[in-house]
């Protein structure tokens, strides 16, 4: 029984079917056009899109729901499974409506419903509908009754409408099917004995009713079903349902950039720095805003948020989105007239839309970007906001002093009493100026060369290389800050000056391979120097130590440290995917037991020192480093090993402040191996 063949009074079913469909499509298209207009107010974007991305994003992440399931943890967070159920249901429903509503009903290809294809599809749909009901019902309960922290403030009307529509729609569908079955039509009339269980079970409700009554019920459920579908279609671009479209494109157009890298600014031609106003985001950054589904995964992972700072990555994205939607109409009008947008609407973002305390609280640890299921980038926006503040000379005093120190002295350690070669005194380490013929350059980094605690890492690592007979050299006084703190504090100018200076020196010595103990230097030289034609092979000291251990060039004795836990430095782990090597090295330290903190590897909790924060005050909330040390203490490990001089310093400080010196110690992996091999 094709609904579209019926008449409703004088309105033909076809007209009604297509009429409401077209109205829905127009409403949909109107909003999409508007959103695209706002989006393309944005600046040009470089380095995105590859055909492979179309495939990997859609299949490997979206259809598989890996984008969600990557956050699934059985004990901690099962919501991703709920989402996957709904999403898979959604995909199957879309197909079903395409075949059996649009083609069969709309185009009158009624024969489609007379096939086994329909029969089997009906079976799938039957289960899907139930799964969706369970998924959405669970979602409703979780969001509005259980209210987990991640969804704090997420109890909005919008969320209610979305969840209710997802929840109620399968009922309409099931009843629609049930009435069909009750009328004896396909799938019932195809000769199969086993019918889709849920809808056929529901069809018993109509047993004994007159055919016309069932038909009327069917008419009601068919149109309810179709209208619900169209309502959802319309609601997609007007709500955060939008992510079902935007996130796929957001994945496809994800900039092709190494994970740890920030995008460079063409300083010669730039007319502004960072994102002063909403129209200065790139179109891809705008797409990020559309993609965000306010799931709160980033919020849940953010060390700044967790320790009570005003930063919440989710809120940053949402605030920017609200500003885009608010200013969008005026901006589009102004653009059409070729006029600048009115300033009272196109307001300064930094300080007005996103507050300074939010902007400076970020450690650029990357937990948000890593956990985000829809490829939203948070760090790039926060750094862009910093870039804008720096350009206006609005930055914390200590940040200013740090940046000035980098710019003038080539290091952030203002007031250090050490020279770059002091740590190497008496170790017979040559500089490239003395002998450029080395196999590998040891890039010491400012913190391992100029900080009292840091130099012990450099000394340990150099000793290990000497033991193993590695032919290495250092740059000594020719080394200058890699620029990481400058870039992440938003001072792109100082960063680029440092990068260019260093690349020139490195190229001058024809350096091919670099090893460094600092993940920040590592990330910067490896992932960001190529932006300025500095292409070097860069390895981290954990990689080299690991290799030397495997090759038997370093022998380590038995060291009894009790139990050890490893803290993943953000720029080694999340930003560069080095998780395995440090753990393998630690396992070599026999007699020791490795324990993991609850937050490890890609979910590791920051030490609080990244993003230039090592040089900033941390006045609001709990200190991030202390929170992390609490996590260490919880494992009962006597020692926390790390592989980053920033982490080391933050933890040394936190342990002292907590007066936990007798409970736990912090050491760099290089120090541990050097101590052990010396025994």
């Amino acid at each position: 029984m094709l609904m579209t063949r019926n008449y409703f009074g004088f309105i033909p079913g076809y007209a009604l079917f297509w009429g409401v469909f077209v109205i829905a499509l127009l409403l949909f298209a109107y909003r999409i056009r508007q959103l695209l207009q706002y989006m393309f107010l944005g600046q040009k974007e470089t380095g995105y899109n590859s055909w492979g991305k179309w495939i990997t994003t859609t299949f490997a992440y979206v259809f598989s729901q890996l984008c969600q399931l990557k956050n699934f943890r059985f004990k901690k967070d099962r919501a991703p499974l709920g989402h996957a159920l709904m999403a898979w249901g959604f995909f199957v429903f879309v197909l079903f409506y395409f075949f059996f509503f649009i083609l069969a009903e709309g185009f009158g290809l009624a024969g489609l419903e007379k096939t086994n294809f329909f029969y089997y599809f009906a079976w799938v749909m039957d289960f899907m509908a139930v799964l969706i009901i369970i998924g959405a019902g669970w979602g409703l309960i979780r969001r509005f009754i259980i209210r987990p922290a991640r969804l704090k403030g997420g109890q909005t009307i919008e969320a209610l409408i979305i969840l209710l529509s997802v929840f109620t729609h399968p009922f309409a569908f099931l009843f629609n099917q049930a009435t069909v079955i009750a009328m004896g039509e396909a799938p019932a009339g195809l000769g199969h004995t086993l019918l889709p269980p849920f809808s056929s079970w529901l069809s018993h409700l109509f047993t004994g009713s007159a055919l016309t009554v069932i038909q009327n019920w069917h008419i009601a459920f068919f149109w309810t079903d179709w209208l619900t579908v169209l309502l959802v279609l319309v609601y997609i671009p007007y709500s955060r349902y939008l992510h079902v479209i935007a996130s796929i494109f957001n994945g496809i157009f994800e900039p092709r950039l190494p994970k740890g890298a920030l995008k460079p600014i063409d300083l010669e031609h730039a007319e502004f720095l960072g994102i002063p106003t909403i129209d200065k985001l790139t179109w891809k950054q705008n797409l990020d805003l559309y993609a965000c589904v306010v799931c709160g995964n980033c919020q849940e992972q953010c060390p700044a948020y967790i320790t009570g700072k005003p930063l919440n990555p989710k809120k940053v994205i949402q605030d920017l989105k609200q500003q885009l939607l608010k200013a969008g109409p005026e901006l589009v009008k102004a653009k059409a007239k070729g006029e600048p947008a009115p300033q009272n609407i196109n307001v300064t973002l930094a300080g007005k839309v996103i507050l300074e305390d939010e902007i400076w609280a970020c450690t650029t640890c990357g937990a948000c970007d890593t956990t985000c299921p829809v490829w939203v980038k948070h760090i790039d926006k926060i750094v862009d906001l910093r870039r804008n503040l720096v350009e206006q000379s609005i930055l914390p005093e200590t940040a200013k002093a740090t940046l000035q120190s980098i710019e003038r002295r080539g290091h952030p350690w203002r007031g250090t009493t050490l020279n770059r070669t002091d740590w190497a005194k008496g170790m017979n380490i040559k500089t490239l100026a003395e002998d450029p013929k080395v196999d590998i350059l040891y890039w010491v980094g400012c913190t391992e060369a100029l900080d009292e605690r840091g130099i012990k890492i450099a000394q340990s690592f150099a000793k290990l290389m000497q033991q193993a007979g590695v032919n290495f050299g250092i740059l000594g006084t020719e080394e200058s800050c890699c620029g990481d703190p400058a870039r992440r504090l938003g001072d792109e100018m100082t960063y680029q000056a440092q990068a260019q200076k260093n690349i020139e020196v490195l190229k001058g010595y024809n350096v091919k391979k670099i090893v460094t103990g600092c993940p920040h230097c590592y990330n910067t030289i490896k992932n960001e120097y190529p932006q300025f034609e500095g292409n070097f092979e860069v390895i981290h000291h954990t990689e080299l130590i690991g290799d030397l251990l495997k090759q038997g060039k370093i022998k380590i004795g038995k060291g009894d440290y009790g139990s050890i836990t490893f803290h993943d430095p953000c720029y080694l782990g999340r930003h560069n995917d080095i998780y395995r090597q440090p753990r393998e090295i630690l396992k070599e330290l026999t007699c020791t037991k490795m324990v993991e903190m609850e937050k490890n590897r890609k979910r590791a909790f920051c030490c609080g020192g990244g993003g230039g924060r090592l040089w900033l005050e941390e006045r609001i909330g709990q200190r991030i480093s202390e929170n992390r040390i609490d996590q260490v203490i919880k494992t009962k490990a006597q020692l926390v090993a790390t592989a980053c001089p920033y982490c080391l310093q933050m933890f040394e400080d936190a342990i002292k402040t907590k007066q936990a010196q007798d409970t736990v110690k912090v050491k760099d992996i290089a120090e541990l191996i050097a101590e052990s091999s010396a025994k």
Partner: protein
Amino acid sequence: MNMIVCIKQVLDPEAPLSSFKIDPATNTMVPVTSVPFVISPFDEQAVEAALKIKDAKGGKITVISLGVNLLRDVVKKPLSLGADELILLEDPAFIGGDSWSTAYALAAAIKKVGQFDLIFCGRQAADSDSGQVGACIAEILGIPQVSVAKKVEAIDGKVKVDKVTTDGYEVVEVPTPALITVSNELGEVRFATFKGTMASKKKEPIIWKPADIGAEPAKIGAAGRRIKTRKLFQPVRDSKCEIIGGETDEDKAANLAKKLVEVKLI
């Protein structure tokens, strides 16, 4: 408001002590690669004082520096902050001077610039720490001076200065043209903006030689010195810590007090 700021390029005063090396033969500091050149910090404050007035009242800021091998990246800094012009007295004849011969050359250059309402100098250079060039320029030009300012306001042909004193400050007013030396109490200096830096890259400094400013060769640089450096040396101490002993902590404390009085630290 036409303003002139005198700046000096010096070895980074914040470099670690161990990186300073003295050549005993010439009694001069030997530059080491690890110690960068910077603008003397008080001179940066002087630039800031001028910029603040430019912000409030508008005007033109001319920066003058003197020396040889002046690093453009260093001395052009004020241009990136908002100064308008940079004049370099860059000639071997200018260097090796004392406060007086340096002031003489700077005053000659200022006379050549001609129009000025305010001259700013740092209270002292971070290398020689002499603290006299400003007063000498003012004397040569015959204009009033105010030393060690923490706030400068220009009001109709006059300048009102908060001058740092031992127990607070004095508000002093002098008619312009006048010379002000500026102290760190002025507060943080601004940060170079990207736009300013880009603009400053395009600006080239004006170079003046002794003849350009009509300076008598006998009065500039080393030739014009009134002060002779007999010796430059690094005081020996620092790394060696003298541990004050005693039977009990109380004894140690008393011994420390005695020692500090003995060496006149308290």
